Each structure stands twice: as structure tokens, then as C-alpha cells.
């Protein structure tokens, strides 16, 4: 590694400002774009309350300021209120990232009393029928509406998150209308990224370029009309329609640290899919993990890069893109992210765009759409095995 070490600490390594606690992979919903790993069954037991609190303490000492409670569905953890209270007491800004299923007015109030700062509620669509079909739950939409209203009524800042894909991109105007009606402070219109379950379902999710451009234009019309009043609309463009890769996670092991339900520490929530050993918070301190583990140092700096990244004058801007995407699409995590037009594997991205065009005019998908659940796990893993 090309870092200078002072007292055993590499200089030039950022602080883990963002700590994401994936409390559980259990979830009542079955969204086909879920970024959780395909292997939902074979991870170790979930961290205990005390183990999580120890992780939060260590992270806070290292400078972490944002703490996300995520999953799976974090509401399934009965100790969530305790975790919120402890984290808030340490000075974290606490974010609950939830489907809303498993919450009621009482629990929203209890979290508020415990010091929760913000709640992000996910929706699948703006209409009940489509939302519930995408979520795989007949009661999801009504519950989400009720909880979004409750979150606002109790004075929280509220973010609404919509993962956008081929089945709901056509109703983006109605999605924005719903967000305005619910008085969201921020709305994430996040075009699906293809990791975990979303990757094996990509054929069914990737919108066409035309659909995407239309959706972005509609979003811009609403921004102009709202003129700073109402929700702030955050349109997250998909890298599949770019010619240069995203600066994934602002750099590997730079500001972001995820802890998976079983305690595995990861530089991003997809890194589990890489053929790299990552340390567990049960065995090592967060400081050792962040500064000294081989997993976290693996893609820091530029020494690991191959061509065309190594000699590229944009490498300090995008760090070669996403390591998980490079591995999934080229079989080698050291390669350039194939989103990059300079990558010799870029044709795989172009091919996915072509498939999206064909499917949009009624073509047949080569793989079935698989809802995210343990019953589909074997089929999902088989698709991945075939693609290698």
C-alpha cells in the first residue's frame, strides 16, 4: 500500500463518517431490486444488542457522525429503541431506513423519545396495486402511507425513497405528486443499481435510455415548478447510461463503513460479493478493521490498478469506478468498472442497454423475475453461477 504510516495509522485515509448498521437481513418485503446478498440463509447469527453498542462506541471515537439503521427491515429488531437511544447519546445523527412495516404511531413516538433524528420511508410505487405487487405484500402501501403521515405529524425530517426501474418509471410524475402530498423533505428517485438481487433481475429492471431521459425531464419540470418550496428532489442517475464510472462510495474505505447483520465489516453494502475476506467486529476493533485490515486496504490508493486505469488522468476523480461491478461483469475486481468507455468490457454495458430496448418493445427475458426471499435463493445463486 502506498500510504505513509504514523504511529501505525495510515495518513491520507479518511474517517468513517458514515456508519451503516445493517441490523438484520430479515424483511417482510420481497423487492426484486434488493441490494442484499443472494445468500440470505448462510450468514452467521445477528449481532447482539451489546455487540452493536460496542461497534457504535468505537465508530464514534473514530469520528463517525452519521449512523444509519438499515437491513433488511430494522424494525424487526426488538432492541431498536435501545440502539437508537445509545447511539443518540453518543452524539450520532441517527437515521432509520425502513419500509414502515412493523411500525405504528406508538413506536414512532418511542423512537422520537429515544432521540431518533430522521426516518426514511421506502415506497415501491405511487399506486397501491403496483406498490404491493412490487413489494410482494398486499398490505404494504396502506401501511406506508399511514406511517409517512405519522412521521411528519410527529415532527421528524422525512425522506421518501423510491427505487425506480422499468415498471414504475412511467409514473414518476405521480410519485413526485405523492411525495408533495405527504410533505416529504427530501425525495430520492434512485434508479436501481445492479447489485445483489437487482443484478440477477437486471433484465426486468433496467429502463431504456428514452424512459430515463423522460423521467429526468419530468423531475426537472417539477423542480422548476416547486422553486425551492416542497420536497427536494434527488434524481440518482444509473451508471449504466454513463461513459465514465461513478466515484463509488467516494473511494474505497474512505468515508463509509457498513456492518452486516453477522458483524462482517464492509467498505460498502455490496462488497460481500467480492472474493475478499472481510473482518468481523466480533474479532477485531473497528479501528483495526478500518486502518489495518487487508480487506479495507485492498483498493485504497492506486497501486492495485490495471490499465486503462493505471495511466488514466481521471483515476483520482473516479478511482476506477465500482469494484463490485468490475468483479460481477468482468470476473476481476482489479479491472476498470466496465461502465467506463475505455474498458475493454464496456460492450457488456452496451449489451444490457440493447436488451432493455428489446424488452421494452415486448421481447422475452432470458431469466425469470425472482422475488427476494429465501425460497428463491437457490435459483438466484444458480443464475449467478451460470453468468460466470
Amino acid at each position: 500500500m502506498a500510504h505513509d504510516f504514523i504511529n501505525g495509522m495510515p495518513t491520507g485515509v479518511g474517517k468513517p463518517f458514515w456508519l451503516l448498521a445493517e441490523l438484520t437481513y430479515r424483511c417482510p418485503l420481497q423487492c426484486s431490486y434488493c441490494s442484499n446478498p443472494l445468500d440470505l440463509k448462510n450468514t452467521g447469527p445477528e449481532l447482539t444488542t451489546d455487540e452493536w453498542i460496542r461497534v457504535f462506541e468505537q465508530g464514534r471515537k473514530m469520528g463517525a457522525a452519521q449512523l444509519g439503521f438499515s437491513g433488511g427491515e430494522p424494525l424487526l429488531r426488538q432492541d431498536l429503541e435501545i440502539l437508537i437511544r445509545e447511539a443518540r447519546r453518543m452524539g450520532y445523527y441517527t437515521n432509520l431506513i425502513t419500509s414502515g412495516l412493523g411500525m405504528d404511531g406508538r413506536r414512532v413516538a418511542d423512537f422520537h423519545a429515544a432521540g431518533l433524528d430522521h426516518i426514511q420511508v421506502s415506497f415501491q410505487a405511487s399506486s397501491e396495486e403496483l406498490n404491493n405487487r412490487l413489494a410482494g405484500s398486499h398490505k404494504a402501501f396502506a401501511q406506508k402511507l399511514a406511517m409517512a403521515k405519522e412521521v411528519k405529524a410527529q415532527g421528524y425530517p422525512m425522506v421518501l425513497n423510491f427505487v425506480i426501474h422499468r415498471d414504475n418509471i412511467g409514473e414518476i410524475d405521480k410519485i413526485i405528486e405523492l411525495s408533495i402530498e405527504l410533505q416529504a423533505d427530501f425525495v430520492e428517485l434512485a434508479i436501481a443499481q445492479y447489485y445483489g438481487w437487482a443484478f440477477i433481475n437486471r433484465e426486468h429492471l433496467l429502463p431504456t435510455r428514452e424512459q430515463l431521459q423522460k423521467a429526468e425531464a419530468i423531475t426537472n419540470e417539477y423542480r422548476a415548478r416547486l422553486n425551492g418550496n416542497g420536497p427536494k428532489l434527488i434524481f440518482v442517475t444509473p451508471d449504466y447510461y454513463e461513459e465514465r464510472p461513478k466515484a463509488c462510495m467516494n473511494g474505497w474505505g474512505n468515508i463509509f463503513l457498513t456492518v452486516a447483520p453477522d458483524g462482517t465489516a464492509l467498505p460498502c453494502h455490496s462488497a460481500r460479493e467480492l472474493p475478499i475476506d472481510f473482518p468481523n467486529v466480533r474479532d477485531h476493533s473497528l479501528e483495526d478493521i478500518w486502518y489495518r485490515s487487508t480487506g479495507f486496504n485492498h483498493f485504497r490508493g492506486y497501486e492495485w490498478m490495471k490499465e486503462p486505469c493505471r495511466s488514466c488522468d481521471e483515476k483520482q476523480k473516479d478511482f476506477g469506478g465500482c469494484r463490485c461491478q468490475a468483479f460481477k461483469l468482468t470476473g476481476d475486481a482489479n479491472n476498470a468498472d466496465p461502465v467506463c468507455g475505455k474498458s475493454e468490457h464496456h460492450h457488456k454495458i452496451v449489451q444490457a442497454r440493447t436488451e432493455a430496448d428489446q424488452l421494452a418493445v415486448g421481447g422475452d427475458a432470458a431469466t425469470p423475475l425472482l422475488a427476494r426471499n429465501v425460497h428463491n435463493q437457490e435459483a438466484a445463486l444458480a443464475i449467478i453461477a451460470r453468468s460466470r
Partner: protein
Amino acid sequence: MVSPEQIPAVSRVYRLQWEESQQSFVLLYPEGMVQLNGSAGEIMAQVDGVKSVADVIAALEAKFPEAGDLSADILEFLEIARDKHWITIS
């Protein structure tokens, strides 16, 4: 324009906090953080939804007597902070 009798308050979406590890005040909001420079942090730390703009100016001039008249700088900052939705002014 911001006038002296008005009362600034930190917006509901933000939380102001001293961060020991950054040696600065920060504004925390859903999934984000703004690191404030020294003078911005000192001004924001006086914004409590009770003190008027005139009170904020008086408090800071008392805290930093060697700095002289701070009112123009403080008014300018409060306008920027309002435009960024960090504070509301009533």
C-alpha cells in the same frame, strides 16, 4: 434582508453539533453533514430560536471584543444560512 429584531432558529431538518474529531461545528441532516468554518460555527452556535439577531450580534461582540463591529458580517452570514435553509427567520 435580515433585520435586528428578527429571531433566527435552526431549521427542523438540521442539527447543530460540536464535533470533537473535526474541531468544528457541523450541521447534521438526513444522511449528510456540513462542516462549518470557525466564524460560521460561532454564529450558528448562538442561533437558538430565542435570541434576536441583535442579541446574537451583541453576544458575539462580547465574546470577541478585539474583533470590533461584527454586525455586517453576521447579517451577511444569516442571509446565506437562510438561503441554504439552515435557519428560519421569524
